[in-house]
């Protein structure tokens, strides 16, 4: 609402997050501009002041072009950049760029297919990342683990090894001509956007970027966001009202599930999950190279011990390192696609699915269903009988007669779940806001909450294991598992769980916030970033003070982690001396008389830390950061233009082609992200890429997306008449030009073909899709909504069946926003076998 320019890219905000889009409309009514950069002209584009169609999978080239424009035209916000980012930091002189190595950074290990990031470090220092791959290599020579000040920097930005100069060189070839060749965006259009963004940034103005899975679901997904982050840091748009990069997430509690961590590689609060090669002693794990990081991550041990106390209570003592070794260890990537392959290969035998529909929603659905068929047992908990539960009787494979039900040995339990109206609990929204929903009615029949299921399954298992006294069962038997039960159904009390998550002191009193966490076992907190959500014994998430009774930031509605902060890194909204950058963009300011930060939000900074603060020698964690370093999670307190650690595929984003692309990488010999996760196996074929033999069999680019009227894999929408009638059939969107080329009749049928699957869809011919000229060649794109499956009131083929498994190396996300395909007229059954 406070933005002067909103750039929606990799997201279809109006369609997928309509209610949040009201704030974009508000900003437009106040004179702000809306730009939509997307392969398709969508309902978001319809309201945009400018829509720029680009080739799916070319966003880094586009954003890189913007960075190039900002750097070469000196449009960066210099005061912000020099003080608040690592632009001036000097990088190890052994670092070599993709410009030097034709698409690789230094440190590439061809045998292992991964990077070694030693040469990416700061000169004379090794830095921990705040997120992602957390461990950094041991510092070289006289080097240190960076906490606060960095060893070498050049505020004049002239040193050839300083980040600013590296950045300039890295993006030197991302010119508007290159953008035109790579993305299919005419230079004039690109320039219009570049000028708009620069005009809408600076002390008086802010620009905001909004993204969703259109950026993330690529083999370079993380680097997409990195590119935007670099741009926003250069323009000074982070930590300020109307600025930032907003991720729009698709599920009610996808943020919470991430925070509280139903993820393999992190524990609640993004604490790293230990690997087999990590130290088995707690201190060694928390201080791998003898030093602790600067910023809040310097308190890692306090956070981890508090979690261990929450898990194992009295069984976690100083003597047993607070049960640190009760934690199972990782040996690599154990993400869901690995599990799928494990099912196919027979190593994974039992599978729980809680409110997700991978048979429709996961890439390469065919492979996923093959995995399900190979399980010993499967437990599905859902509101409806979704395809993941019914694969053995009505999957496409069974319908086509490829497999008979009798041949499938999987034992399936479908347990009806309670709906959000039938249980107490909190969701964390996309802005990190915890909001409580109350049980309105009791669930009927066998419907139960997941809380009930987890509790009672755990209780049964514990009762069965108690008798056998095996050492391996200690972690499960020692878990604190005493939650008050309520009502006829003996439902565990959700508030008691939230209380445990938020944390308590040794005497059992609720903790006020994460500052109270200690590493001596005197505090317990199930999720350190949620510490304080039950402060004062009050369920803070359940607060519902109407917005008209409070400030526009509305701090008394729900509770945002951490510490009820609404805008992260909001110290950056003031200049180094603590004064607002401008009156128009005032947010936080240092009040020298009160000696504290004031403003409508909770400061994301020690509240009484003066801008002039200089850390005393030996200060640690947040105390190691000077008073003008807003990025308090980073070891150096600065926004990272250059990421020395944390990423597995390079410290700077680089344009790579998707795994399957109709064109060559115009920048480097290296086509795709070298560090991407490939699964070369017969049941996961990849298409030949541009130039390879047979590439012309799959000449078009396809991309998947959602529609307003449905929800993700359809489990919560295809069974509803109200929604089904609004979008009753699977369709594909093609341009009039492609329709002509492939003789597709509007309203008729088309079959979309890949090596993985063929699906049929109704044809929607529309000028909202337009062929683009990329490197002198015409690229046609096909749009595919992915909501349908074999069940529900409306049925259809699943678009995700078409895609291969190929993942981003950092977060193991599937590439379903760009791949190649063929399109043929007519229904699936009419196609001649290829």
């Amino acid at each position, binding site marked *: 609402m406070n933005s002067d320019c909103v750039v929606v890219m990799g997201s279809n905000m*109006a*369609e997928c997050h*309509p*209610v949040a*889009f*009201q704030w974009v*409309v508000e900003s437009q*009514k106040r004179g702000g501009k809306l730009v939509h950069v997307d392969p398709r*002209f969508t*309902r*978001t*584009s*319809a*309201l945009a*002041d*400018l*829509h720029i169609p680009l080739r799916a999978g070319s966003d880094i080239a586009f954003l890189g072009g913007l960075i190039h424009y900002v750097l070469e035209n000196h449009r960066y916000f210099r005061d912000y950049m020099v003080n608040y980012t690592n632009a001036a930091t000097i990088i190890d002189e052994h670092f070599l760029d993709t410009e030097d190595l034709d698409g690789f950074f230094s440190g590439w290990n061809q045998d292992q297919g991964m990077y070694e990031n030693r040469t990416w470090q700061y000169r004379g220092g090794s830095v921990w990342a705040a997120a992602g791959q957390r461990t950094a290599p041991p510092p070289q020579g006289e080097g240190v683990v960076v906490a606060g000040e960095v060893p070498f920097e050049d505020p004049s930005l002239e040193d050839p090894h300083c980040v600013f100069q590296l950045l300039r060189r890295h993006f030197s070839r991302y010119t508007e001509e290159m953008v035109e060749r790579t993305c299919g965006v005419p230079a004039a*259009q690109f320039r219009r956007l570049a000028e708009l963004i620069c005009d809408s940034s600076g002390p008086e103005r802010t620009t905001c970027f909004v993204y969703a899975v259109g950026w993330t679901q690529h083999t370079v997904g993380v680097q997409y966001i990195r590119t935007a982050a670099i741009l926003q840091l250069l323009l000074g748009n982070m930590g300020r009202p109307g600025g930032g990069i907003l991720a729009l997430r698709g599920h009610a509690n996808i943020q919470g599930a991430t925070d509280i961590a139903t993820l393999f590689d992190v524990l609640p609060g993004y604490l790293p999950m230990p690997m087999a090669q990590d130290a088995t002693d707690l201190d060694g794990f928390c201080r791998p190279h003898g030093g602790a990081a600067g910023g809040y991550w310097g308190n890692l041990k306090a956070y981890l011990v508090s979690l261990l106390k929450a898990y194992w209570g009295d069984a976690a003592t100083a003597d047993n390192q607070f049960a640190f070794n009760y934690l199972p260890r990782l040996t690599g990537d154990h993400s869901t696609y690995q599990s799928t392959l494990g099912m196919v290969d027979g190593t994974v035998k039992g599978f729980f699915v809680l409110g997700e529909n991978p048979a429709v929603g996961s890439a390469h659905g065919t492979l996923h269903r093959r995995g399900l068929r190979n399980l010993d047992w499967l437990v599905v908990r859902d509101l409806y009988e979704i395809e993941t539960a019914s694969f053995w009787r009505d999957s496409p494979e069974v319908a086509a007669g490829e497999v008979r039900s009798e041949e499938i040995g999987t034992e399936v339990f479908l347990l009806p779940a309670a709906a959000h109206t039938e249980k107490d609990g909190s969701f964390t929204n996309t802005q990190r806001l915890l909001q409580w929903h109350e049980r309105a009615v009791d669930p009927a029949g066998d419907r139960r909450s997941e809380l009930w299921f987890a509790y009672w399954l755990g209780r049964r298992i514990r009762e069965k294991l108690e008798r056998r006294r095996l050492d391996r069962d200690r972690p499960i038997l020692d878990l604190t598992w005493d939650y008050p039960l309520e009502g006829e159904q003996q439902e565990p009390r959700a508030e008691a769980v939230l209380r445990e998550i938020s944390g308590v002191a040794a005497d059992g009193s609720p903790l006020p916030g994460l500052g109270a966490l200690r590493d001596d076992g005197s505090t317990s907190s199930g999720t350190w970033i949620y510490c304080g959500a039950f402060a004062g014994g009050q369920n803070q998430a359940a607060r519902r003070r109407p917005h008209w009774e409070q400030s526009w930031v509305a701090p008394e509605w729900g509770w945002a982690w951490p510490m009820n902060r609404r805008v992260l890194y909001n110290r950056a909204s003031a200049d180094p001396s603590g004064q607002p950058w401008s009156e128009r963009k005032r947010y936080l300011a240092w009040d020298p008389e009160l000696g504290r930060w004031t403003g409508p939000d909770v400061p994301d900074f020690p509240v009484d830390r003066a801008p002039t603060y200089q850390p005393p020698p030996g200060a640690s964690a947040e105390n190691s950061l000077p008073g003008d370093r807003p990025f308090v999670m980073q070891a150096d307190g600065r926004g990272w233009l250059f990421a020395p650690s944390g990423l597995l595929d390079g410290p700077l984003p680089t344009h790579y082609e998707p795994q399957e692309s109709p064109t060559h990488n115009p920048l480097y010999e290296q086509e795709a992200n070298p560090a991407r996760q490939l699964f070369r196996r017969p049941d996961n074929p990849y298409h030949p890429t541009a130039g390879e033999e047979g590439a012309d069999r799959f000449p078009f680019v396809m991309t998947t997306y959602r*529609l*307003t*009227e449905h929800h993700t894999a359809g489990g919560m929408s295809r069974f509803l*008449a*109200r*929604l*089904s*009638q*609004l*979008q*009753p*059939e699977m*369709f594909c969107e093609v341009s009039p030009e492609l329709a002509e080329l492939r003789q597709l009749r*509007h*309203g008729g049928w088309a079959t979309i073909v890949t090596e993985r699957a063929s699906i049929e869809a*109704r*044809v*929607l011919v*529309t*000028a*909202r899709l*337009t062929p683009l000229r990329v490197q002198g060649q015409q690229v046609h794109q096909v749009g595919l909504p992915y909501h349908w499956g074999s069940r529900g*009131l*409306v049925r259809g083929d699943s678009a995700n069946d078409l895609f291969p498994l190929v993942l981003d190396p950092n977060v193991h996300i599937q590439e379903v926003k760009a791949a190649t395909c063929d399109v043929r007229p007519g229904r699936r059954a009419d196609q001649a076998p290829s």
Partner: protein
Amino acid sequence: MTPGPRLPTLALPLWQAGGTRMGFFTDSSVCIGCKACEVACKEWNGVPDSKPAWSGNSYDNTLRLGANSWRHVAFVERVRQDDAAGVRWLMSSDVCKHCTRAACLEVCPTGAIFRSEFGTVVVQDDVCNGCGYCVVACPFGVIERREDDGRAFKCTLCYDRLKIGEQPACAKACPTASIQFGPLEELLETAHARLEQVRAQPGGEEAHLYGADESDGVGGFGAFFLLLDRPEVYGLPPRPEYRRRDVVTMWGAASVAAWLLVGGLAGAIRWRR
């Protein structure tokens, strides 16, 4: 007779007698075509579901207003000749217009349709006997007889919600406030201000208010629109008409015709003598 509170029986519609006429302003320039209005309306009013059928008409699978769709979002895809950027996608949520001179109301022979104290036009489902006259009378094709039910239905502007001081379900749900509810006078003011803003923007040159003028064919709408293109593009009649004086002249013509019949008859009879 059913006991219970009874509202004052109004001699004249309250809004004509100085009360407040309530209505909708649908600002299509901020409509995102999400169809929340369609769903919220069906949910609140218990409107039956339509049979799922894919139309291929852009994203519109509802197609038009009717007995089972009291809100309908139109999707118009256009290639803009004057702009290299090309496409334009217009969306607008249509609804009963609650006309100042409402044909459905004036032709309804049972009194099932009445003018409420909010100035809205409401069908009473316990009175309607399904004569079907309103169906052909409506200049917008809004009201329709429900096939399996026999009665005619249309938007009531959530009469029941208005009675407890709530806004209609569609307006409450609308994410971008494309549908605004309020006293008509205030809405008109908002709309004129908004029109100026929209017209100043590129692509807004043809923006106009539809149904905001009391001198139009139906005396203005209780639910009017800001449109970015001509009405027929959205499936709306360009110049809807319903005038009471037409009924008078028609009766005049019919009287003359009746006299002609009698004259002819008399002639035929007298001729014999």
